[in-house]
Each structure stands twice: as C-alpha cells, then as structure tokens.
C-alpha cells in the first residue's frame, strides 16, 4: 500500500510540486522557443518525455556499472543517443512536427531537466521509480508547455492547435507569438504561480545548486549568485 502511495507521489511530484518548468525553472529554452503553437509545444513535451523516460530507465539500470568519474560524460552520451533516436523517429513518422521543431529537437540533449533528473534521481533510484519520475517530469513539462502555448496561440493567433477560433479573429495580439511575447507570458505565468502559492513554490533550495546540473563541477560562486537572484 505504502509502496503504491510512494509511486504515486513520485509520479505526481513532477507534475505539480516540482513542475520542472514553472517551479524548478529548468528547460527554459524550449519553453520559450517551441510554445508558439500548441501542437509544437505538446510535440516537444512528448519528445522530451520519451527521452526522459528512456534515459532515466537506462541510467537507473546502469547505476551500479557507471563509474563515478565517468558519470557526466556517460549521461550525456546516453541522453544524446536517445535524443537522436527520438529525432529520427519523429522525422520518419511525424515529418510536420520535425519541420516545426527544427534544431530544438536536437537541443533536448542539453535540456537541463533531463540531465538534472539523471543526476539527481535516476542514478540513485531503482528502475520503476526512475521510470515513474521520468514520466511525471515529462508530463509536468508537457503540461506547462501546453498551458503556455495555449495562452500564446489563443490570444496571439486566435486559434487552438491549428483550429481557428472564430470570435477572436479580429482581436489577435500578434506580439504574443513573437519572441518577446514568449518571454512576457513566461514571466507572467511564473508571477501567477508565485501569487497562487504565496511564494512557497519557487523556494531557493529547489532550483539553486541542488536542481542545477552543473552542481557537480560548478565552483559554487556563480551558482550561488544564480540562486540568490531568483
């Protein structure tokens, strides 16, 4: 029973309490770059989810084999490998998504969420939890991207997932689909999360050094500044 509960907690953790995008503030680049359309954002989210799941499972399986000193390079290779696999699959079977995501599909490799989960969770936990964590984090990432894309597409392009919304046609705020609009909506969303949770969510601890992939080889200074700023 408690096992089930713990599993559920692992799964939901990434969706709400430690939502990678809105609470941990990780993976900001794809969050801003691929949320012009709902389809692109959800596609990016699912691609990242697949990579996250595969790499978490793989790393968890090998957690006793991978030597400590070769940790980071091994993770990077594993993640880059799965990214390429996902990229090839998307290119073959969903070519339109491949076109719209472009180079950002490749850049899942350097998405901090994935390396971060590998380092913080998968390398220390058994396969099932690692898989659940990957799925939870992936869903959390997808939902956050989807929410942001919904705002940008509905108000910016008067459509949802490519389907035009008739009564909004004359009230498009085209700015929202452009680069500055992405930054603005992200800023507002983060402020909203802060307001709703009364500032409890973005705790310094959650996304300072602990959540940062560079923590291992970082010389503290810059990292501390980063935490302090937020």
């Amino acid at each position, binding site marked *: 029973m408690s096992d089930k509960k713990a599993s559920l907690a692992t799964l939901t953790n990434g969706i709400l309490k430690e939502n990678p995008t809105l609470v941990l503030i990780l993976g900001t680049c794809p969050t801003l770059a691929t949320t012009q359309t709902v389809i692109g954002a959800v596609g990016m989210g699912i691609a990242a989810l697949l990579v996250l799941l595969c790499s978490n499972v793989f790393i968890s399986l090998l957690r006793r084999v991978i030597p400590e000193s070769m940790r980071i390079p091994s993770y990077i*290779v594993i993640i880059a490998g799965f990214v390429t696999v996902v*990229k090839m699959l998307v290119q073959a079977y969903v070519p339109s998504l491949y076109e719209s995501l472009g180079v950002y599909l490749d850049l899942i490799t350097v998405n901090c969420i994935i390396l971060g989960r590998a380092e913080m969770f998968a390398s220390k936990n058994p396969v099932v939890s690692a898989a659940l964590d990957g799925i939870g984090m992936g869903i959390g990432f997808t939902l956050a991207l989807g929410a942001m894309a919904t705002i940008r597409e509905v108000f910016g392009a008067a459509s949802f997932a490519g389907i035009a919304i008739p009564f909004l046609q004359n009230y498009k705020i085209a700015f929202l689909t452009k680069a500055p609009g992405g930054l603005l909506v992200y800023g507002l969303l*983060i402020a909203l999360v802060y307001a709703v949770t009364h500032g409890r969510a973005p705790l310094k601890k959650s996304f300072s050094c602990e959540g940062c992939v560079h923590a291992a080889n970082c010389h503290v200074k*810059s990292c501390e500044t980063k935490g302090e700023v937020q």
Partner: protein
Amino acid sequence: MEEIKTLLVILLSCVFVDNYVLCRFLGICPFLGVSKKLNQATGMGVSVTLVMLLATAVTWPIQYFVLNTLGLGYLQNIVFILVIATLVQILEMFLKRLSPALYEGLGVYLPLITTNCAVLGVTINNILDGYGFLESMVSSLGCGLGFLLAMVLFSGLRSRINERIVPAPFRGLGVTLIAASFISLAFMGFAGIVEKIFA
C-alpha cells in the same frame, strides 16, 4: 567583395537580427542566471564566444570530413556534445596553466558552458544552414558577440531593476523575464535592416 558582403551580412544578422538569446531562445539559462552583474555578464559572454568559435572550428571538419564521408550523420548530436565537453575541459586546463588571472575571470563560467544550448545550437545550425567553414566561423563569432551584447545590455537593466520595489509576485524571475521581453522587443526593430544596408 561579394564574399565579404555575405560574411558581413551573416555577422550582423547573428548579432542583431537573429540574436541567439533574444530571438531564438538559446542560452536562456545563463542569460537569466549570470547577468546580475556587469563583470559576470562580460566574463560569461566572452567565454561563450570563445567556446563557440573553438567548437565550430572542430565540429565543422568532423561533420564534413568524418561523419558525412562515413555516412554516420546520425551520430552528429553525440559527437558534437562530446567534442564541446572535451573542448571545455581542455580550455579550462590550459587557462589554469597559462593564465591564472584569466582563469580567475573566465574559469568559473566554463563548466556552465558544456550544457549551454547556444553552443550546441550554433554548431548544429551551421551545418543545417549549409555554411562553408569561413561562413560557419563568422556566424559563430556573430552569435557569440550577440550573446555577449545581450548579456551586457541586460546586466545594465537588471542593476536598475534591483534598486526598485517590485510587486511581490513579480520579484525575482518574473520581472526579469518581462524586462527581457522588452529588450527582445527592441531587438525586433533590427529585422530587415541588415539586408537593406548591403542591398
């Protein structure tokens, strides 16, 4: 003359029009994280430019002379990220040995660069855009300088924000992102200028 014009267009486009941080959203993490003070922003910007140039100088020949000739294009991602990671390590070691002063200034930022998507992004984009070696180097230089410019501009803005009282929910990242949005808006004004200058 024509070639110089092309290179200049690439350079200026990368710095202003297609600014990696403000228009393409690559390298946002360091942009938000390390832009609080001017000297940090400059250090990070210079390091990124340096690594971008080095990484392109190494990955471009690898892509065209190794991966393409062997038909191993699908290893691009893994090879590039490993090259970048190795380069960063080597650069760090060299700096430590040769110029401790410079290492003091730049060294702390180097480990952060390994997983900076702007660096991997620029190397992959150069291949995707079909640039030749010289064009790739110029584009990397432009992207690096664009990153530096964005960092320096933004650090100036942030020092002002930090002196102001901001409504609680916007404190920290919220207001930072919104300020970044305005800088990005300003950069949109460059669209179309570069081509016209040389037209």
